[in-house]
Every structure is written in C-alpha cells, then in structure tokens.
C-alpha cells in the first residue's frame, strides 16, 4: 500500500515559554491508501488536533505534512481550502448537515463547491445516496432522519468530491449499535473497494474490529502503534 499522507515530526504548540502546551508533540506517521487507520487515546491526547492538522484545517506549529506528495505546512492560508476540497472528505461527530437542505441537497452542496452543478450533480448525489443505502431519503430534511441515517448522508457528502482521504471524527459516538456498525461497514468498504484512506478518531471499541492499524496517542505523542492485519496474521 502506497503512502498517501506523510506526517513528520509534527508539533502543535499553544502558548510560549514555560507555559507552552504541546497538543501534538512530535508525531511521525504515514497513512496508506486502502487502510482504515484508527486514532485512539484519552481525552486531551491530541487526536482531534492531529486530525485537524492532517486535513489542513489547523496549521501545524512545526513539522511536515505531505498530502499525496504535496507539502502543505508551508502553503498560504488562502490555498488551504483548495487542498481540503481536492484531497479530503470530512465526517463529523455531530453530522454537521445543513438543516435547511434535503439529504440530496446536502450532498449536492459538496459538489457545488467543486463546481459540479445541475443534472450532473443530481445524478452523482443520487449515486452516493445509493452507495450509503439512502436513496429513499433523498428528499427528507435532516430533522426527519435518525442519527445513523444522518451520518450516512454525511458520508455521502464527504465522498461527493471523490477524495482519496476521508477523515472522520468520532463518527459513531452519537449512534446506537446497529447504526454505528452500518456506518463502520461503509467506511470499511471505502478502504477495501475504493482504495481510499480512512482515518477515524474514536473512543468506540467497535471501530477496532474494522481497523487496519491503531495509533494510540498520549500527551500528543504516539504511544503505541498496532498493525491489526499483521496481528491477525500472527494470530492465525
């Protein structure tokens, strides 16, 4: 599997001098195509901060992040939206759907950002809703959907720009067991069938069943890295 996201000696520091706090403290990590990487760790360990920096949402204090071969830490602020638009899909714990838009329109808006509009956008949005099994909810507003359905719409929206990397922040935290499993199956499919890299920040142990690799963070550092497929092979 080729490396799609390369992180080297990454720091995120808040404050200066003696009061400085390293939210991310010298992380070096590779994310590969077709893998589902899980970031775990206690609250305040720097998982979400690391995820935000991976997705070019938060700027690193020092270190390097290469997205598909492009160094992003030195890019001007104004260039970062384009990097996010072209390389990443985001899934949030709170779904972050647009309440005034239907499921279909929520997906279409991501296409609109990529200037895909009209019937082409509608066709593509319907395909994505089919992929997450929610074609019948295309014209429903988010308020009429369950948590699991909302998260699947959010996944469809994240995939609208055809990103190679999907970053998910606690995607199952607000979901019941069955809905959480369904969401994880979809994310797993993205790695297996579409060769996308999926990075999931979670506290949810259910996610571990689908992980290829688990990175445990503590105090902003990588405390442990477990390659699940290798472990499975060892076990077998």
């Amino acid at each position: 599997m080729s490396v799609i996201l390369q992180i080297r000696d990454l720091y995120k520091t808040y404050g200066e001098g003696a009061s400085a706090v390293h939210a991310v403290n010298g992380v070096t990590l590779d994310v590969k195509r077709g893998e589902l990487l899980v970031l775990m760790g206690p609250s305040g360990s720097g998982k979400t901060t690391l995820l935000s920096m991976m997705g070019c949402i938060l700027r690193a204090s020092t270190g390097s992040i290469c997205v598909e071969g492009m160094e992003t830490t030195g890019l001007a602020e104004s260039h970062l939206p384009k990097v996010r638009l072209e390389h990443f899909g985001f899934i949030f714990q709170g779904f972050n759907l647009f309440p005034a838009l239907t499921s279909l329109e929520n997906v279409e808006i991501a296409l609109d950002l990529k200037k895909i509009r009209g019937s082409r956008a509608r066709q593509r949005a319907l395909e994505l809703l089919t992929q997450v099994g929610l074609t019948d909810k295309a014209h429903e507003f988010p308020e009429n959907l369950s948590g699991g359905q909302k998260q699947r719409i959010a996944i469809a929206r994240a995939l609208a720009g055809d990103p190679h990397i999907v970053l998910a922040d606690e995607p199952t935290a607000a979901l019941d067991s069955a809905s959480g499993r369904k969401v994880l199956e979809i994310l797993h499919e993205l790695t297996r069938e579409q060769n996308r890299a999926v990075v999931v920040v979670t506290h949810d142990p259910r996610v571990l069943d689908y992980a290829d690799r688990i990175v445990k963070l503590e105090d902003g550092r990588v405390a442990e890295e477990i390659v699940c497929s290798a472990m499975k092979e060892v076990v077998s």
Partner: protein
Amino acid sequence: MSKLALRNLFHDKVRLAVTLTGVVFALILMVIQFGLFLGFLETSGNVVEHSGIDLWITAPGIPHVNGGSPIPERRRYKAMAAEGVDLVKPYAFLFANWKLPSGAQEAVQVVGFDVDSRLGAPWDIAEGSIDDLRGADTVLIDEHYKKKLGVKGIGDTAEINGHRARVVGFTRGVLSFTTAPYVYASFKNSLDYVQLTEKDTIFFAVRVKPGFNRQQVKAAVQANVHGVDVYTNEEMLDKTRSYWVISTGAGVTTLMGAVLGLLVGMVVVAQTIYAATVDHLREYGTLKAMGANNAYLYRVILQQALLSALMGYVLAMGVSWFVVEGSKSGDAVILMPPAMIAAVFVLALVMCAGASILSIRKATRIDPAMVFRA
C-alpha cells in the same frame, strides 16, 4: 442563486418575517420622507415654475416669492423701455383672510395676475376658465381646497379681507405647500383682496422678446429701473425653494427623516442578518472545512441580503403606493416619481448589502476547526 442562501432564508420563517418587517418599514419611511421632500420642493416653487414669467421685478432684498412687498406701479414704464422687454405686467402675491360661510376664517394666498397676457396664470384648469376672471369679484381656487374653503361649486361666494369673492372655476393640482391655499384673481380684482392701491404692485412680471437673452435683458432692466431687484424665473425659483427647503430647515428635516429611514433599515437588517449568520456559524464552518473559500461564503450571505432587499422592496412599494394615494386627500403632498422608485430600489440593495458586511466578516473569520468541537 445559491440553494443554501435561498433555503436558509426561508427555513426560519419568523426570522424572515422580522427581516422583511425591518426592510419594509425602513423603505416606507424612506419613500414617504423622500416623497414629502419632493412634494415640498414641487409645491414650494410651483407658482413660479409654472408662471410663464421670464423676469421678476421685485422690491429690494425679498427673501422669496411669498415675501414680496409693494413697489410703485409707475416703474413699469422704465422697465418697458429696456431693450428686449416684450411685456411688463403687475403681479400680486400676498396673504389674505378668506371668510367661510360659517364665519370661520382661513388664511389664503391671493395671486393677482394679468388675465390678457396670462403671465403668472394657473397652469391647470379643472372647471371654468381664466377668462371668467374678467368679471368683478371673481376668483379661481383649487378643487383640492373646496372643503377647506367651504365651497361646493361654481357660483359660491365668500369674503376675502372683507371683499366679496365669487368662485368662477377650479384649478387642478395647484397646491400650496403652506396651509394657505392659492386664490387666483385678475390683478385688478386682487388689489381689493390684498389691500393695495392701483399705484402699487408686488411684482412686475416681464416677458422677454423672442431671441433675446434673458440675462442680458435682466441687466438692461436692472440698469433702467432703480430701487428694485430683477430675477430670472429660474433665479426666483431657486431663491424661493432654497428659502423654504434650506433656510427654514423644513426640507432638511424631511431629508434627515429619509436618511434616518435608511440608517434604521440598515441597523435592523444588519441585526437580523447578523443574528442569522451567528445561528448558521457552524454551517459556515462546515463549508469552510469542506473546502469553501471566502468568496463562496460572501456569495451565500450577500444573496440572502439581496433577496431580503428585493422582497422587502416589493412589499414596501405596495404599501407606499397606498400611503401616497391616501395622501392625495390630505394637505401634505407626497410624490413618488418613477426615478424615486428606481432610486429606492438601488438604496434597498445598498442598504441590505451594506448590512451584510458585518455578517460576512464574521463568517469569513470562522475557524473551520470549530467543526470538530462538539
């Protein structure tokens, strides 16, 4: 039009109603204040504007057309001797008291003009004719003031400063900007009403011969006639309007009302659009995280503001039309010419776009990392 802008606007109907109420009230206030100002501008100088007089000869230093004072009639001959002068006719314009049949009194402005030359005559006759003023004690009033002056129709009589006056016709739209209606009479009849002797007049109305330059004729008259001021019609119009509109502060006050309407509208719309933006901050943050640039956010917020302006404008124009129509039965003249309707549309767009600037600043400064906070 962005679907998000459209849907966000209509999603919260209470907020939309509040925004539109703000826009509508601000625009109505602007239309009425600007309309009053235009009406004021029109009526304060209408007697001069429509007079057909080329030059006005007045007592020295009069402030405006309504503030004339007597000058000797004999100076007419010196004025006539000036090169380029075609006609010089006496013209009276003074306040008087009109006695209603009930015995009550109303202030009026008597306009005495030369019926033969029509210099200074009323410009729109609804009933009767100017020639009817040749008879003794005859006057024309505007149909708008029938009730105010206790007149039902032609032939009704009243008293002006104790002299009999018989209504022989009605003008249309010859409205006064003061509470004192205009009463037109022949100059000869007006002498009694305004208590002038035949040896005096208030103004001389001059007609310039065709082909002569008014400014040159004015200079010639001024040189020939001592102890008077001479104005072209445009100068008299400017003098009169600037006195009433600027010097008295009335026009400025009206204009201030219009500007206040604009400011109130901006504040109300800015508040509601800002509140809506704050409500949708997480959505804008999500858009930024997804890769939307600032221009995309500008567009969404600006489109919401402009759509609010458009809807508010249509509603406000409808209400304003009723107000303007309703004003026709009252004394306050509110004009709503097409140019003002167009100008208010532009102002509505500017007001709403301006009001959205704070919101745009707020939205574009969102940290997209907020989307990861629960």
